[in-house]
Every structure is written in C-alpha cells, then in structure tokens.
C-alpha cells in the first residue's frame, strides 16, 4: 500500500477504518513499527472495536490518508492483536516520551510523529517536539496558528529527524529516546550533565552508561552531589571506579564522600592504589575548608634543580596534573620553601638553580581554613592556586581558583540543578 506525501500520527489516531463494503472495522488505536532500511516503517495498525483490539497488516490496507483509511479485509477475518513485549508501538512507546535534543542540548517531549511514504511503505521520518505538535494533538492547530498571527508571530515547525533517534534502553518501562551515542558524546560535558539532571535517575544512569569514561568523568563532576550519588549508585562498581579514577582526586573525593559507606569502599578498592590513597587523604577534611577543596596533584621540585632540568621534567609531569601554573619548591623533608610561577621559570636563565629564582615570601593556608578565607587570599594576591600546609610546613595540597570561584559567582552562572 503506497503512501503519498506526509502524515502526522495524531491525525490518524481514533480515525475509523473501513472494510471493502464501507463497513466500520473499528478505529485506529496504535501502530506497530518495525526496523527498516533506511528508516523504521509501519508494519501494522492496531484497531479497536468494542474494546477488542485487532491487528491489520500494512499490506491489507487499500487507502491510507488523513481523510480515509480502508482495508481489503472484511470484519470477520481480522485477527485479534496479541500483545507482545517486543513490539514497538508509536502511541504507547513513543508519543509523549522524553527525548534528548542534542542540538539544543536539552530534554524535550515527543508531541507527534511524522510519517512519509517511501517505496510503498510508511516510514517514520521525524518526531515533532514543538508547540505545533501540541496544538495538533489538542485539535486546535489552526486556531493556534491564527492566534500566533495576531501577535505577528509564526508557529514554527520543530522536528527532529528520525535519523538522530534511537531507543535509550529497550527494557525501560517507558522508553526514552536519544540521539545516537556518538552525537551525545560530542556535547559539552556540562550540557550532558544538564540533560542527565532533567530525566529520571534511572534514565540518567542509562544515558551515563553509554558515555566513554572520560566524558562521563567530566559530566559527573558537573552534577549536584545528590544526583552524583544517585547515578553512581545505579551503575556497577567496575564502571563507577573506572569513571572516578579519571577524575582529579579532589573531585573524586567529593563524589565518594556523598556515597553510602559500603559503595564507597567497594569503589575505592577497585581504584588504583596510589590514586585511592590520594582520595582517602582528601576525604579526611571538612567539605568547605581548604582541606576539603584542595587537590593533591601539583608539581613540586627540589631547590637544587636547574631551570633547564626543571623545564625538561615539567614537560613530562604537566601531562598528569590539572593545574600547572606554579612549581612548588620543597626540601628533602617535603617542607614547602618556595614557589616559582611557570612564567618566571620560562624566563629565567637556564642554568640557574631553582632556589635562586624562587619566591620565598609564601602565601599559604592551613587545611582547616574556611573556603571564604581561601577565596579572599586568592583574590587579594591574584593567585591561580594557593598551597595548603600543615603547622610543620609540609605541603599537603593546593586549592585552585576554579574550586573556589563558585562561592563568589552569582548562582545563575553556577552549575546547579533545579531543586525546589
């Protein structure tokens, strides 16, 4: 049965279906979709009469458009529809569900589904996620159009091509659809986090599982602590440890700190020993003190090292470390004695020892200093990072400016999710 032109599913639902003699077989209840090349296509209609559902195969239709639907099968010979878990139904499984619009990096709802004739089949070509779709479903598309015209605006089409859509996880009770994984991974991690925070945690976890660990680690960091814990709690420990391992230790410690003790222990056991120790160490500090904010990834060299050697080593070490703008100078006992900025290091004569060019009037904070104090220090001395030292001058870690900037930013600019 060829279909000419385009149709919206909402224009067909509840339409009567006639048999060859013009008798009513029932009304359209739903559509069964099967995989097809290049697009999924309709394989059958589910029609309903007197509360009984029948299956009408696509081949048995003779007319199919928004005015009339008729079949070549007579009422008596229709087969009842046998419900099957595996069937994908448009109305039940696709309409009104959430999908991810990767273009606008947001979650939208499917208001309608667009069909188009292709080689004798009716193919699903797009989903409607716009206002127009809502109005069409309510049966007031034209009135809505006129209303918009009064305000001098046009109701635009807002369609997402089916090419970009695939089910998130077939076994979820309500299927959410999403753009193909690789498209999702191309989004900025902050956008992914935003999307994850808008769907249920179950779906959020499903979405999360599809990301590569690197992207997942960045996206996880952007989420609110509650959501982090909920998501990590729902994915298995191997994958969780894989993701957490890729986070800087201070961020990893923040995530671990919010997990139930049991889960935290399991994950820590799976993480590489050295990394796990770093995280453990950070876990001992209060959250809003410099100890809780600091990271123990930094670059520290001995005072006797020459500038040229230092630059050579820096090339290697900087790969592993997030903040590289200062080189800390520590003595044999690992006590902090000086600091050199990257700029000074590059400008210094190559054969000078570091002790000669280092700044010894150090600005430092104690691990229990309040985050506000830390922020004020960074701001006052125009620093990008500040070392945290204990009373004996041991270098414990550094607090970087991006970890404290949130305190002073207006909330609109912060990563945050709705919580009323």
């Amino acid at each position, binding site marked *: 049965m060829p279909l000419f032109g385009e149709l919206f599913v909402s224009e067909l639902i509840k339409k009567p279906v006639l048999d060859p003699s013009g008798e009513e077989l029932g009304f359209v209840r739903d559509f069964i979709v099967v995989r097809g090349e290049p697009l999924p296509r309709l394989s059958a209609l589910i029609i309903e009469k007197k509360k009984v559902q029948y299956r009408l195969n696509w081949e048995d239709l003779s007319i199919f458009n928004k005015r009339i639907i008729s079949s070549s099968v007579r009422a008596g010979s229709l087969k009842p529809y046998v419900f099957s878990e595996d069937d994908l139904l448009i109305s039940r499984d696709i309409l*009104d569900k959430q999908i991810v619009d990767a273009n606008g990096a947001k979650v939208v*709802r499917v208001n309608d589904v667009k069909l188009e004739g292709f080689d004798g089949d009716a193919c699903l070509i797009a989903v409607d996620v716009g206002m127009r779709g809502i109005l069409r479903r309510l049966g007031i598309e034209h009135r809505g159009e006129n209303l918009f015209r009064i305000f001098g605006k046009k109701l635009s089409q807002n369609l997402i091509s089916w090419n970009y859509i695939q089910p998130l996880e077939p076994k979820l009770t309500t299927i959410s659809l999403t753009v193909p994984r690789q498209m999702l991974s191309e989004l900025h991690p902050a956008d992914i986090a935003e999307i994850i925070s808008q769907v249920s945690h179950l779906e959020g976890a499903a979405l999360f599982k599809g990301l590569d660990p690197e992207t997942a680690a960045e996206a996880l960091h952007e989420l609110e602590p509650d959501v982090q814990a909920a*998501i990590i709690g729902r994915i298995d420990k191997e994958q969780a440890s894989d993701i957490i391992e890729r986070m800087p230790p201070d961020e990893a410690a923040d995530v671990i700190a919010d997990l139930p003790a049991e889960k935290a222990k399991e994950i820590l056991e799976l993480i590489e020993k050295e990394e796990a120790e770093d995280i453990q160490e950070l876990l001992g500090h209060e959250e809003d003190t410099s100890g809780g904010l600091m990271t123990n990834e930094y670059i520290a060299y001995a005072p006797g090292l020459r500038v040229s050697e230092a630059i050579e080593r820096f090339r290697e070490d900087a790969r592993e470390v997030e903040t590289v703008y200062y080189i800390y100078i520590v003595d044999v006992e690992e006590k902090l004695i000086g600091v050199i900025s990257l700029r000074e290091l590059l400008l210094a004569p190559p054969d000078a020892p570091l002790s000669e060019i280092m700044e010894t009037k150090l600005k430092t904070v104690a691990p229990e200093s309040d985050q506000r104090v830390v922020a004020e220090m960074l701001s006052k001395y125009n620093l990008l990072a500040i070392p945290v030292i204990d009373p004996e001058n041991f270098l414990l870690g550094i607090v970087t400016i991006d970890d404290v900037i949130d305190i002073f930013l207006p*909330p609109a600019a912060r990563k945050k999710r*709705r919580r009323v």
Partner: protein
Amino acid sequence: MGPGIITANLDNDASGIATYSVAGARFGYSLLWILIPTTVALVVVQEMVARMGVITGKGLSDLIRENYGVRPTFYMMLALLFANFGTTVANFAGWAASMEIFGLSKYIMVPFGAVFIWLLVTRGSYRLLERILLVACLLYLGYIISGVLSKPDWAQVAYNTIVPTLKWDAEYMMLTIAIIGTTITPWMQFYLQSSIAEKGIRKEHYKASRLDVIIGCSITDIIAFFIIVTCATTLFPYGIRVNEAHEAAIALKPLAGQYASGLFAVSLANASILGAIIVPLATAYYVCEAMGWEAGVNKTFKEAPQFMWIYTVLIVFSCVLVLIPGAPLILFMILSSVVNGILLPFVLVFALSLVNNRAIMGEHINPKSYNYISWGTVVVLIALTAVFLVMTVAWKT
C-alpha cells in the same frame, strides 16, 4: 530534612491557617477530632505518590503525560495553573494582612515581598532557600507556643480530639470539609512526588521515606491542632467571630496577650511568604516538564520563555491583584478553591490508576488491602469535595 516534612510544612499556608483559625473561633474544640481522619487520609494519599516518586524517578505530571497523553495533561495543567494562581494570591493576601498587623503598609510590603521572592529564586542559591525553609519550619513552632500560652482546658481538648462531635449545622459541615480540603491539595501531590524523584531516593531506602511522609503529615496536623486550640481557647468563649487568619491574630491580643498575638502574626507572615515562594515556582516546573518545555531557575527568558513567563506572571498578577483596593479577593480565593476541589479527584484518580499499573510500578503496586483503603479515601474525598463545592458556592453567593 526530608521532602515529606518540607511538603507538609508548606501545606500549612495562609488559607490553611485561615480555615483552622475560623474553625477554632467558631466552634471551639469541637472540630478537633476531624484532624485524625484527615491525617490518615493525608498519609494514605501522600504515601502513594511518594512511592511512585521512588520507583519511577519521575514526577506526577511526567507520568500522567507519558501514560495518558497530551490532552488530559494539558487541561490538568491549565487547571493547576489557575488553582495555584489562586493559592499564590491567597498567600500574598496573607502576607499583606500579617504585615498590616505590625503597622506596615501593604502597598510597600507586598511589592517588597514579590521582589524578594523573585530575587531569591533567580539570584539566590538553593542552599539559601534551604536555610530559609529550615528557619521557616521552625517558625511554625510559634503556633504551638501561642497555643500553650493561651492556657487551654487540656482535658476538654483531649476529649474532643478523640470523640467525634457531629453538628447538623451548615457552617459546621462546611468547615469540616474545608479543613480536609485545605489539607489535601492537588499541588502538594505534584510537589511531593517530584521532590522525592529529584532526591533520587532508591527502593532500598523507601522505608525511611515512608517515615518521612508520616512524620510530615503528622506535623501538618499538629500545627493545625494548635491553631484550632489557640483560637478555640481565647476567641470561642467570647463569641468573637473571625473570618480570616489576621483577624484571629488581632483578636488574640487582649485575650491571650501580646506574645501569643505576635507569634500568631509572625507565623502567618512566615507561612504566607513560604507559600508565595514555592507555589509559583513549583507550578512553572510541573507545567513545563509536562509540556516538554525548557525549565530551570538558572535559565534566561530567552532560553526558557514559558517557564520564566509562567513564574513571573503568577507572581506579578497575584501581587497586583492583592494591591488593587476593593479587589474581589474573597471571590477569587473561592474560585481557586473550587478549581482545586474539582482538580483533586482527577489528580487522585490518575495517581491511583498509575500506582496500580504493573507496567510502571512493577511489584510495588498497591496491595489489595491498601487499595480498598485508598479507593475508600478517594471516594470519601471526592464526595466531600463535591459537597464543599456546592456549599462554597451556595454559602458565599
């Protein structure tokens, strides 16, 4: 603090306090018994939506949209929008009234309140909001203190709480129903389920959540209990008739002393501003989530136009309406309680059919015995709401 306890505190908003005050002043302790069945009904209803939030991780409006399509959702959201507009107006009116008790002009304090709310949500942080909520919840203790300060006859109070009294009096019936109607509202069901879903509470921790709901519902009605007791002890014996919460606060002054009256007024101001913060915000969220529109306080007008407009219009219109001299506020609040009343059965029937849908809830659908209780509750609520609607319209017009 759990979502159940927060929701419960928010439930005692300006209109709730007005109803309880009037009930106490008009009929003394004799309406206290109604709080026990009300608490039971509240627990039953809220436990269901809380369970749905935990199992599905979705809000009520999401579930309705996904399972019943755009049409019922659209009309339900339209009704919710209107009903919650009324609730917001009631809360701004409560704020205006409580400020006037302290001699502050409403023409200054209402716009001030509106701007404060706007800034709090658009510029403040969730942490700040949470702290304010916490302080606000503590301020509800004011009602308990003023209740104790009024020195009630505890034996009589206990008797009337346990032994039901029935009076065949139109006003008595009306207040009975109004107490139930103001305690179990449509918007709370949406609010509770999405804040539970939001928290990402998992099945294993559901028991704690249930406890949270039960404690929350009890707190709601303990506050209600003390408001009724206060007004019943001090106003009822003198036959002082009050129509609104702020009249109760003023009337308490010569009888129960400066402190009881002051505490009562502060608590009213607190409840009103809380309601005015949460109701418009929550409304904007549910409507946008159900319709698939962008939502979020950190978005701009350009990014989330529907969300921002719904939120702004609710606040600005409510604020303006309260300020118009001689505006028919009472009429408007009646209209909104009518819409609330009409909406509640739909919300409850949707909630019940969703909670019993195995495809959504799996093994966590209502057990049979539970279904009898909840359907019973719903039927009784629907019947009472219907009576309430008829009475509201007949009595006030």
